[in-house]
């Protein structure tokens, strides 16, 4: 006799079920069950994954959920048809939206109101039907609402209390005339998952296994049973078993029935969406091409519009256009990226800023009839103002029709070891030691645990290893996607439940990006980008102070001084090309055109680096190597990158052309490339690609290399369209740095935190570029950094540091100073303290940062006074004149800089090493400028401040460090063995000495380190913070 498991909870019940939805479906299929229900607690988080696997295996998936009621009891609802599914989603949304995150509660009345299309299973340990008191009224209400779709569910888990509960359920069901159905709460697909289920229970309750007691299930009887096992469990009541199949037959709903329509704009009278899109596209084209749209562009637009119309995607494009229009209207800088940059329609609508026709980008990468999948447009919005756009989307489409996409936070190695270690009762300090030895994805070996002090071979260690492997990928809690929005023509809560996110005013659906893609739903990505903040702020400053108006579209293209700066690798603060590795690449690649910048942005990525593409490309570019193609058919694809694949699109095209992949297969390859690290799915393409390329006459060696490159792209490869969008901003910021260095620095400092360098490095770099930086002063500074006219500085302006750089100062305090000053200039510290009513802590911090120098020349005197200002009887402040005078030693120049760094993270007054230069010179330690002019192979001793430490995964253990002095940077290369020898110094010293050999190549200088040491001079510069990347 067969049966249908109707009450199954997966890992998507969050820390309750111990099997993934697809594992439950697979096991059901393996033991010969035709149907299975997924009924996660208060949600449908896992149904897309279960649906996908069920489709593949031909299993009938019933969708439902265990609903929690206000009295903490529960009942199971199953969707019998589309209406029922919509009701389920609405009911869950109702429960979730009124509750704090992670909780959902509904009333019996609400359940009854949403009964249409739903079946209700009532029973189990958490139900009132099995409780001590007979819930007569609730029974009557449910029976009235559901009629014969209400079942009394029996649950047998061979636990104490089973008999008593079942007796009550049977008695009450009989009295009310409700049919009984056999069931059990399935928490895992196999009994072997019982330990994981116990561990998850402990994590949920924050207890250890030793103290969990009866919070754990008393036995392992919650596994999915095969038909024979279930029948024998209910051998006394075969009718109740047969009724499970009756229920399954009544539940005909499938996720395949979901029909999704993108929201359409309210259109001007009688205009169709297609006509409206056409109108605004050609209006935009006229603007883009100054009234004369080139013929090839017109043709391209027609082709795209036809395809958009055929696929009925007009609504999506109109939405993107509306969002961009909102941004433009509200002076919010935004720019589309991703494959949208391949679309001429997007360019003409103003969504993207790259002309795909001029660039030769392929529209098919963005949208194709064969792939028939939704287009993907990512909209970068200046970081500070993204929330405004998000809230606009909520307001415009209503919260019922718009919600953000979820992101499931899953267990990875470190989080697994931390939580499982706690569950097993290990001291947290010991757990942390193990966790620290691992990367986020690396699961510990027995040796690693031994190194961390855990006994090898012990039961504890065996359990730890077993459980952390099993818990990998188990969702821990729901988070929010960085910017993904689901918008629907019909209410979103009829598609998927909506719930509250942790962030205020954010609502989120119960599916993640992959689920949304799997069902072919449209998603809009609204992402924050700090660089757009910088650009916007800089342009505003130029307009305000220089009277000139620029935008990214109007700055002069192909500006030679800008490309000179880029080629010199002088790019601190320039978007995307400011890192040490990018700066080292620029003098070699020597970008001369916008497209060179696109390549520059793409080439310094783990994908091309691990794929071995960088050096061949550079050799071909410099003419050292002949440009050839392994097969003539590949020339059109690889021509623009000199025969070397550098972009993700090229890899996909390569698979299509060289290995006869269909567009669908190529797209799967793209997805597998993105996911290979965690799934290893890329390996299944290896044989197929190589064999097919061989059939085409492509040499095995090249085929192998292509596969390695593809795998490398999985690490992190850039699509060309993406790089094209970023290259525009890179060029824009480089142009600003070249022509308006003061405004650019000001914009950068006001947009912090962002980018690769700390404010102190940005300030020092600007000073080296002739910008005068004036220190923070309560008499002159605003909250933000500002420009002050100053001859001989930058574009005629100096940068006045803002009060935002006084550590621990709040914006309202800074604004108060500015507001009070606008009323009347301060005439003394007492006056300042009285007028601003700032507390002693902030007064002291201002004194320490040198912002009170107007009142007291010496900072220690200012600090003593600031601490001593006391309220007068008139509610003001005054210094006690009768107090004896205290005498303090004045700060010297080095100490002054030290205080600047400590209390404002930078110094406008000088670099710490400039005060020590004489001493360093006496020790025969050259500065960075001197080193830049030294020859290849020279042996050098150098000392500088560490501003950056990097250990890229692609560098096989090599550590890169950047040291700074008052004249510039010195880049260190530390081989793994050298690093191990000097690890402590390398990790902890902020002022570091290095001895080694210079490596000068194409104008790029690196110091290959042989020794690290602590510079032995009497005075030391202050401790500075470096930015470390691993």
């Amino acid at each position, binding site marked *: 006799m067969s049966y249908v498991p109707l009450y199954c909870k997966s890992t998507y019940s969050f820390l309750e079920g111990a099997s993934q939805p697809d594992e439950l479906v697979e096991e059901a299929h393996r033991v010969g069950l035709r149907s299975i229900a997924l009924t996660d607690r208060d949600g449908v988080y896992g149904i897309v994954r279960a649906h996908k696997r069920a489709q593949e295996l031909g299993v009938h998936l019933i969708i439902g959920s265990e609903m929690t009621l206000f009295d903490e009891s529960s009942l199971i609802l199953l969707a019998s048809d589309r209406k029922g599914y919509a009701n389920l989603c609405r009911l869950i949304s109702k429960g979730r939206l009124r509750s704090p995150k992670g909780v959902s509660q509904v009333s019996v009345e609400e359940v009854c109101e949403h009964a249409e299309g739903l079946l209700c299973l009532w029973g189990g340990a958490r139900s009132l039907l099995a409780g*001590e008191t007979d819930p007569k009224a609730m029974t009557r209400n449910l029976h009235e609402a559901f009629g014969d779709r209400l079942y009394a569910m029996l649950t047998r888990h*061979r*636990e*104490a209390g*089973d*008999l008593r509960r079942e007796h009550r359920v049977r008695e009450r069901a009989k009295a009310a005339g409700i049919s009984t159905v056999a069931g059990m709460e399935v928490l895992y697909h196999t009994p072997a998952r*019982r*330990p994981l289920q*116990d561990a998850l229970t402990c994590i949920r309750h924050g207890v250890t*296994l*030793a103290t*969990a*007691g*009866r*919070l*754990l299930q*008393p*036995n*392992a*009887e919650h596994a999915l049973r095969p038909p024979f096992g279930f029948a024998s469990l209910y051998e006394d009541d075969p009718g109740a078993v047969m009724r499970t199949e009756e229920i399954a037959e009544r539940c005909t709903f499938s996720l395949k029935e979901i029909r999704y329509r993108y929201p359409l704009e309210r259109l001007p009278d009688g205009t169709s969406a297609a006509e409206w899109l056409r109108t605004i596209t050609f209006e935009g084209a006229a603007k883009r091409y100054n009234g004369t749209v080139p013929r090839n562009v017109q043709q391209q637009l027609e082709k795209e519009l036809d395809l958009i119309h055929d696929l009925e995607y007009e609504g999506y494009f109109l939405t993107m256009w509306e969002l961009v229009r909102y941004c433009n209207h509200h002076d919010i800088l935004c720019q589309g990226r991703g494959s949208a940059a391949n679309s001429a329609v997007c360019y003409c609508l103003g969504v993207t800023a790259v002309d795909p026709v001029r660039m030769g980008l392929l529209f098919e990468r963005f949208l194709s009839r064969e792939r028939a999948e939704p287009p993907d447009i990512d909209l970068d919005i200046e970081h500070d103002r993204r929330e405004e756009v998000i809230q606009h989307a909520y307001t415009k489409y209503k919260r019922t029709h718009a919600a953000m996409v979820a992101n499931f936070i899953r267990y990875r190695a470190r989080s697994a070891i*931390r939580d499982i270690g706690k569950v*097993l009762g290990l*001291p*947290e*300090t010991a*757990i*942390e*030691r193990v*966790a*620290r*030895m691992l990367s986020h994805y690396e699961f510990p070996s027995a040796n690693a645990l031994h*190194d961390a*002090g855990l006994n090898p071979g012990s*039961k*504890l260690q065996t*359990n730890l290893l077993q459980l952390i492997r099993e818990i990998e990928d188990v969702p821990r809690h729901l988070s929010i996607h960085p910017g993904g929005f689901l918008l629907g023509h019909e209410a979103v809560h009829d598609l998927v439940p909506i719930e509250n996110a942790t962030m205020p005013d954010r609502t989120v659906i119960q599916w993640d990006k992959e689920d949304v893609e799997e069902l072919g739903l449209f998603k809009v990505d609204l992402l924050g980008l700090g660089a757009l903040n910088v650009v916007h702020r800089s342009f505003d400053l130029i307009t305000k102070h220089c009277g000139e108006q620029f935008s990214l579209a109007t700055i002069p293209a192909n500006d030679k001084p800008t490309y000179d700066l880029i080629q010199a690798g002088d790019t601190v603060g320039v978007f995307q090309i400011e890192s040490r590795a990018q700066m080292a690449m620029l003098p070699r690649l020597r970008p001369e055109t916008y497209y060179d910048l696109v390549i520059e942005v793409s080439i310094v990525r783990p994908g091309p680096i691990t794929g071995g593409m960088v050096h061949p490309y550079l050799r071909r570019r410099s003419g050292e190597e002949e440009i050839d193609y392994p097969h003539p058919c590949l020339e059109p694809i690889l021509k623009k990158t000199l025969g070397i694949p550098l972009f993700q699109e090229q890899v996909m095209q390569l698979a299509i052309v060289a290995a006869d992949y269909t567009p669908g297969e190529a797209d799967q390859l793209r997805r597998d490339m993105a996911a290979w690290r965690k799934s290893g799915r890329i390996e299944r393409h290896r044989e197929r690609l190589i064999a097919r390329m061989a059939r085409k006459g492509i040499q095995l060696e090249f085929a192998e290399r292509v596969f390695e490159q593809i795998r490398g792209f999985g690490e992190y490869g850039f699509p060309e369209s993406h790089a094209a969008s970023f290259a525009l901003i890179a060029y824009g910021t480089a142009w600003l740095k070249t022509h308006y260095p003061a405004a650019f620095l000001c914009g950068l400092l006001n947009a912090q935190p962002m980018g690769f360098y700390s404010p102190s490095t940005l300030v020092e770099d600007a000073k080296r570029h002739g910008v005068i930086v004036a220190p923070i002063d309560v008499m002159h500074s605003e909250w933000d950094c500002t420009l002050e006219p100053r001859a001989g500085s930058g574009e005629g302006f100096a940068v006045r540091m803002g009060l935002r750089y006084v550590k621990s100062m709040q914006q309202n305090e800074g604004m108060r100073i500015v507001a009070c000053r606008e009323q009347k200039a301060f005439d003394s510290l007492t006056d300042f303290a009285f007028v601003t009513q700032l507390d002693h802590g902030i007064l*002291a911090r201002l004194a*320490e940062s040198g912002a009170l120098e107007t009142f007291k020349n010496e900072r*220690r005197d200012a*600090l*003593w006074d600031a*601490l*001593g200002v*006391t309220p007068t009887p008139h509610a003001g402040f005054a210094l*006690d004149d009768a*107090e*004896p*005078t*205290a005498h*303090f*030693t004045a700060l010297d120049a080095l100490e002054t800089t030290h205080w600047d760094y400590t209390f404002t993270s930078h110094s406008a007054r000088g670099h710490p090493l400039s005060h020590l230069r004489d001493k360093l010179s006496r020790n025969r330690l050259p500065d960075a400028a001197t080193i830049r002019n030294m020859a290849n192979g020279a042996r050098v001793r150098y000392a500088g401040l560490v501003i950056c430490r990097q250990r890229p995964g692609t560098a096989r253990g090599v550590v890169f460090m950047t040291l700074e002095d008052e004249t510039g940077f010195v880049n260190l290369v530390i081989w793994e063995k050298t690093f191990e020898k000097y690890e*402590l110094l390398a*990790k*902890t010293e902020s002022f570091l000495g290095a001895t080694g050999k210079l490596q000068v190549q194409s104008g790029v200088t690196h110091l290959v380190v042989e020794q690290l040491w602590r510079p032995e001079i009497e005075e030391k510069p202050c401790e500075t913070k470096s930015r470390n990347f691993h």
Partner: protein
Amino acid sequence: MERLGCVDVRALPLQLLLRTHPDWRALPVVVVDRDKPTGLIQWANEHAYARRIFPGMRYAAALSLSRELRGGVVQEAEIGDAIDLLTRRLWCFSPHIEPSDREPGVFWLDASGLRNIFPSFDAWAARIGDDLRTIQLYAIVAVGFSRFGSYAGARSSARNRVFQSANEERAYLRGVPIERIIADASLRDTLFKLGIETLGAFIDLPASGIRKRFGAEAYELHRFARGEGWDTLDPEVLFEPIERREPLDYPEDNSERLLFRFAGMLHGMLGELSARHEALKMLRFWLCLGDGSEQESEVSPATPTLDANQILVLLRLRLSAIALSASVMEIKARAIGVAASQQQLALFQESALRNVDAAQRAFAKIRAELGNDAVVYARLCEGQLPEAQYAWERLYTLAIPKPPRMASRQLVRLIYAPPVELPPSDRHEPDGWLIAGIAEGPVEEVVGPQIVSGGWWTKDVSRAYFYVRTRSGRWLWIYHDHQRRRWYLQGEVQ
């Protein structure tokens, strides 16, 4: 008060942690405030300092500097016990001891008049250090003329220090770095910012300015540093046990006669306790036997008392329960007291209907006769197995029970501890399964199974429980242990 000593058991919590983990001594070790990666480091040893791991860092941050780092939490109670122990030991060196209530490990000792006992203050300090080393704790001792002077001496020196004159102490004090003395990190940092690095520079700041800017505590410290105030010790009160011993004239075997001997001893001890305003909390006694061995035991009254009769009743019961391997040659007793005030107050309490005191006394007698484990109660636990659902715990204080109201009548289950092993169930037994003997008849009805399994993280347990009814009508609660492959009688339904 002529002279004061200050004992600084440096970084006491760290020393305690290292005493627990001697194998960590060669490694970087820290004490954290809580067992969390975000725990703040409170103390660090020299190996940790060498790796730039300092107090104030987060444990997780420190780990990134040294993978060898070991860390642990030292509980307040453990520190408290250590301070108690140290106080008791230091009483051997001075009658007046004051432990610091701010810094664990700092003690002030009245050193006046000790020259007559110890050859010099140097020798006194050295003896203290030697004594503490026997319990694996290391301390610096300074002897000075003021409390602050001796404290500064101990905190700032690498070895013991004895000031020969008050002037020498004052001069030394001016050069002491403030980080050795000022525990308040905020005050210390602000003074550093002002360029104040020694106590001398601190003393030179205007007192009124200190009070205005840094508050009363800093002002007080400033005052102490200037040599004003804070010299009176507030010594710890010691409930010193009273001990007596009495060699017997001839070997004794008779418990009544032994009791008589103890009675004489007891009256004197109680008198002494009474004079100290204490009452007897516990009487520990030793019987030294002819074969060279000692028999040790103790009795405790229900509440502290000065009533000799109560103690003697308990003593009689305990002596009569002791089996002697040889005759008693000597008896020793130690009376441990507590402050008597609580007991005096108890005299005025209204008596309840149920006489809890009488029950307490009865339990005391039972404990005296049968040992401390004779009076226990069942504490309910959250375990899955029947035997894990309760634990026997000693009952010292009796409360009037307040059972919760039950909605329905509960069946009473008798639990066998340990369970009784049953004969195997023979499938072909002609008379059926005779689980409780022939008289009860064979098993006629079985309900179950109810499965209890778990404990996989320590020791796997898997049992199938059944209720079975014998022909005689008894309902027995039995289980099959899957690991042992045996049947057991767990209990019975009454």
